[in-house]
């Protein structure tokens, strides 16, 4: 079983929320325009988290699989 580690580069991220469309359980743009995200997503969320990273227009999401 692989462990997921997610980090988002705050300078690159412009909060378009495309990640939230792909993985709403793991990424959320808040009302005041910040991005909340799960740094250690559950294994069943892997595919959605990877799609979020692929969809990021700023390529700001870094995913590590251990």
């Amino acid at each position, binding site marked *: 079983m692989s462990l997921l580690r997610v980090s988002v580069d705050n*300078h*690159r991220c*412009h*909060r*378009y*929320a*495309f990640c*939230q*469309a792909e993985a709403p359980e793991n990424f959320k*743009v808040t*009302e005041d325009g910040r991005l909340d995200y799960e740094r250690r997503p559950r294994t069943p969320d892997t595919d959605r988290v*990877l799609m979020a*990273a*692929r*969809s990021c*227009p*700023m*390529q700001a999401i870094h*995913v590590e*699989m251990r």
Partner: protein
Amino acid sequence: MKSPEHIAVVGAGLAGLRAAERLRELGFHGELTIIGAEKHKPYHRPALSKQFLEGGLRGRDLMLPSYFDLDAEWRLGTPVQRLDPARRVLYLPGEPPVRYDGLVIATGVRSRALPGAPLRDPRVHMLRTIDDATALHRSLAASDLPCLIIGGGFTACELASTLRDLGRDVVLVSRSKTLLRGAFDPVMGEAITGLHRSKGVDVQLGAQVRHWAPAERGVGAYLSTGKFVVAGCVVLAVGGEPETDWLYGAGLDISDGVLCEPTCHVVGASDVVAAGDMARWPNRRFGSTPRRIEHWLNAMEMGRAAAESLLAGRAAAVPFEPMPRFWSEQYGVRLQAAGMPRLGRRVVRLSGDARTGAGVLGYFADDLLVGVVGRESPRAMLHWAAKLRASLTPAAAAAATRRRIWRAWRQTTCTAEGATA
């Protein structure tokens, strides 16, 4: 397709990368060859007109990751010369032919050369590849004179924004009456035009270059509006054309990109799929007309779908029916769209006022919502994109086709009842 031994991916951009990645993700264990005309591995093109030129991101920051081991043979700097789909062979320059069992075509588009422009002048640029952007960067450093941008689309607008942020003088020349006319309605186009003018861009609309006069000091351009510009560099951003020259003689329909079935399978070939900017296919959420979509997210999604279809085979493959989405950022203003706004005939304000600030516009064909455009509204766009996805189904589109509500693709006249109210 019965367990292929060798799959070739022609095109090492986003669509090609995501297709290759998906093949491995789905358990394809055979040989994988990725052939790219550029000498670089897949990189993030959208950043070229923005963060790369600004200096915030460098070449190595732009590399696109694969989340699965590709275990591929990369043939970079290798433009494929010819395809023989009957014998399943690719011809490469100066190398033995490559045989394949399955083929992904994803060669994208190249910048269109503006007829009459002094293309050989080192101060005249196009902006598609990282090499283009590097050359432009050099040109910008060599002269303080204004930068002349020809074109009114996203590349032209984003570049104008970047150059103003860098403190450069910019003259933007477009044949259209408003900027971004191909993507939005005239009201939103005028709002964007106003944004550029408020930031000090000299926007010349309904205009073109009558005569070019390259001189030692700068590149002179006489505009049809009577203005004369001496530019330190020129960027031709007048759109792209599908990279399909290598498909001449292959017996495929390449009248505007390569024609595909709803499943991304290329019409007229076996075990060949296409993806990205150069693939023309009917997205059945918008009727039966095959269209090309030059959006970054589409290249990503279609690359994956094409890989799935290739492995599934023609009979078992499912149609690729995405809800298209795109974004653009100019002067820190985030624009997003979902669906196909330019298929709409009527524009309605769904929230706020996107002409002046945050807001969302809805585009209707008859009573059917076919697209939404948001300005500084990412959260609202989540809602509207999901709503579009749920309501604009292939069945709804088929019913709409019977009522003949789809407008011609290139037609861009739009009333703006809601937006002007």
